[in-house]
């Protein structure tokens, strides 16, 4: 039950983040919103690293450099999220992001790219994606 509450809150927070960014961008602009929210989030995370005496950042050098760059994608993600929410609404934006996210993960799993354990593409996953797209069509048209 505790796990379900955490997972539920995680989803609610992700959406709230998008909505808050969209609201902030109305006052100060989209790039500004992305810059400020991540700066404050970064400061909070660094504080936590210091407080819990986490020394694991020393292991960064063991990671292949390209994987360390993932965080920078967030600039475009947040910008796209804000743009989407303003032009097509929260529900449609979140739904489209989910589908394209699951589809790319599915593709990467199937191809075994980026050192991911190769998984066989199965029929249910195709049906799942088709259902999600059908849902978006129902949502919008």
């Amino acid at each position, binding site marked *: 039950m505790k*796990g379900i509450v*955490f*997972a539920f809150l*995680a*989803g609610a*927070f*992700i959406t*709230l*983040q998008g*909505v*808050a960014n969209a609201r*902030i961008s109305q*006052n*100060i602009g989209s790039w500004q919103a*992305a*810059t*400020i929210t991540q700066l*404050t989030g*970064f400061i*909070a995370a660094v504080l*936590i*690293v210091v407080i819990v005496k*986490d020394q*694991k950042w020393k*292991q*960064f050098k063991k*990671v292949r450099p390209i994987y*360390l*760059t*993932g*965080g*920078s*994608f*967030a600039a475009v*993600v947040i910008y*796209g999220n804000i*743009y*989407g929410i303003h032009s*097509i609404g*929260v*529900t449609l934006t*979140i739904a489209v*992001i*989910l*589908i394209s*996210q*699951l589809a790319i993960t599915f593709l990467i799993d199937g191809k075994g790219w*980026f050192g991911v354990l190769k998984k066989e593409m*199965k*029929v249910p*996953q195709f*049906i799942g994606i*088709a*259902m*999600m*797209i059908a*849902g*978006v069509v*129902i*949502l919008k048209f």
Partner: protein
Amino acid sequence: MLIGLLFAILAGILVGLQNIFNTRVNDHAGTWSTTALVLGLGFLASMTLGVVFEGTELFVLKNMETWFWFSGLIGVGVVVCLVQGTRLLGPTFAISIVLTSQLGSALMWDSLGLFGLEKIPFTSQQLIGVLVIIGGVIVFKFGGSRAEQRKVTKVVKHTLKQSASVER
């Protein structure tokens, strides 16, 4: 509208890639060091692109409200809840709930139209659309895993039988 859709598709692709990359970092460096790195780089990238597209206008923060400074903390909440949820439920179940709750709360925000967002009235058509998407998420996440489990049980049974016959 088309540009909005394209931006959402691009954002989704980047989120998927980012998740894979971040998991690789997380394997070595743990949750908090990884979160700090990810947000730090996100900040630098946003600032850089902001300067590229808007020049020094980026640093002119008119109409700033106090709570804007704290919105970044939501991201910390996301990480804590994701990590705990996944730890307690396993990734498949946890992510299915996360996605469902994301969509459900999105529908709520649209129908409330708070925060100066355009209000999109709640209709049964929208609810059906969201339910079909959630159904798709469940089929996507849980479909095939049972077949795999069956295969595993078969193999286990087979091995047990073999070892039993060896013992005999």
